[in-house]
């Protein structure tokens, strides 16, 4: 949040810093502009020199994407996988986070185990993960794609911290009232942990929506492909001969960008809490 910008006397002026940041912002935004421009332009995208402003812009590249590839099917697959991952990870992470607030023998070991698991990047497990998923018989299904994301260690700790911040007297009062443990979680703890929920939803959304390597391995049939796979496949089929590819790119980027811009605060807090915890 912008702090009052009254600079103390004797400190250097602001404009050089603004100048640098404007240049940096400009450099960061060029790729976005270039792809949006290409997706809108009506001329041959390979014409040289390329025009900075799109020539007779139109939206028909977006119409082409819809019909050139089974866009709706990719979208459906992506949405279902993401919804499963979000629902599953919320349920499992809340449960695990709540269990970790209890004092039970071996709790330290479980925490250590989770922390060391966090150091194993998923990419380093792809070969056995493929074999395990095929052994479970869920290869090439929505569940199989969502399965590794159904529980995320970072979010477990986010929930644990959030639950521990709730005054114990509140929980004891509820227990005296005869609420079951699950009711305590859903009625008392969760309404007080909105930001933890937002963190979980957003992180899982981003991971699942953007996942490429795992779906590439776990999905075999074209009907089950998610959007990133569809994008890679479209690229290999069309070898970027058309502006429609870039329209596809823009369409795929919009949800991630929209979620980020709507929930920037929760998003950044989620990522940094994830990062600072390992």
């Amino acid at each position, binding site marked *: 949040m912008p702090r009052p910008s009254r600079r103390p006397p004797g400190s250097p002026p602001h404009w050089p810093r603004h100048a640098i940041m404007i240049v940096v912002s400009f450099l960061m935004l060029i790729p976005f502009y270039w792809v949006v421009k290409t997706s809108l332009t009506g001329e041959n995208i390979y014409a040289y020199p390329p025009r900075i402003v799109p020539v007779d812009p*139109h939206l*028909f590249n977006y*119409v*082409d994407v819809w019909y050139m590839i089974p866009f709706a099917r990719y979208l459906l697959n992506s949405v279902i996988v993401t919804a499963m991952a979000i629902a599953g990870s919320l349920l499992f992470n809340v449960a695990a986070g709540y269990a970790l607030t209890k004092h039970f023998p071996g709790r330290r070991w479980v925490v250590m185990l989770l922390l060391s698991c966090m150091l194993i990047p998923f990419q380093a497990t792809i070969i056995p993960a493929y074999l395990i998923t095929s052994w479970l018989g869920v290869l090439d299904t929505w569940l199989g794609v969502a399965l590794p994301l159904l529980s995320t260690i970072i979010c477990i700790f986010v929930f644990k911290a959030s639950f521990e911040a709730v005054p114990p007297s509140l929980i004891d009062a509820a227990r005296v009232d005869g609420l079951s443990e699950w009711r305590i979680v859903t009625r008392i703890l969760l309404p007080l942990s909105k930001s933890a929920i937002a963190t979980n939803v957003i992180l899982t959304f981003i991971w699942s929506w953007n996942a490429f390597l795992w779906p590439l391995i776990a999905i075999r049939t074209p009907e089950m492909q998610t959007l990133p796979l569809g994008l890679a496949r479209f690229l290999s089929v069309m070898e970027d001969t058309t502006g429609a590819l870039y329209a596809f790119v823009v369409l795929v980027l919009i949800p991630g960008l*929209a979620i980020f811009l*709507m*929930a920037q605060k929760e998003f950044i807090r989620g990522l940094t809490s994830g990062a600072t915890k390992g």
Partner: protein
Amino acid sequence: MTWRALTHRFVAVPLALVAVVVAWNVYIAFNDHGVIEGEVRDRAGAPVAGATVIFFERNFVYYEEKQRATTDAQGVYRFTDMKTHVGQLEARTADGRKSERRQLRLWFRSQDTEVPPLVVEPPRA
């Protein structure tokens, strides 16, 4: 759950999206008979009867002929059931006059469209 929850951005934005999608699909459902119609005229602006209008459909990178129609006495042609969203139209007459190829891009497959008049001109020498 109160009505105020509806104004929260996480609720309002998806709801707005759903509303747009539903409205768009309703519009499509009423306008997808695949009717493409228009008029053929000569240079003077008079309707040309009996001209052949050819619809070329895009096939990835090139266009191939898909369907033909003939203009009636008022110079009006009409394609029905065109299940496509991109193509080209060209009018030809029996005496060798031709129109330009008109690029046709539609917002959705088999959108009902009225094409601006095609003007036939005598071939250049």
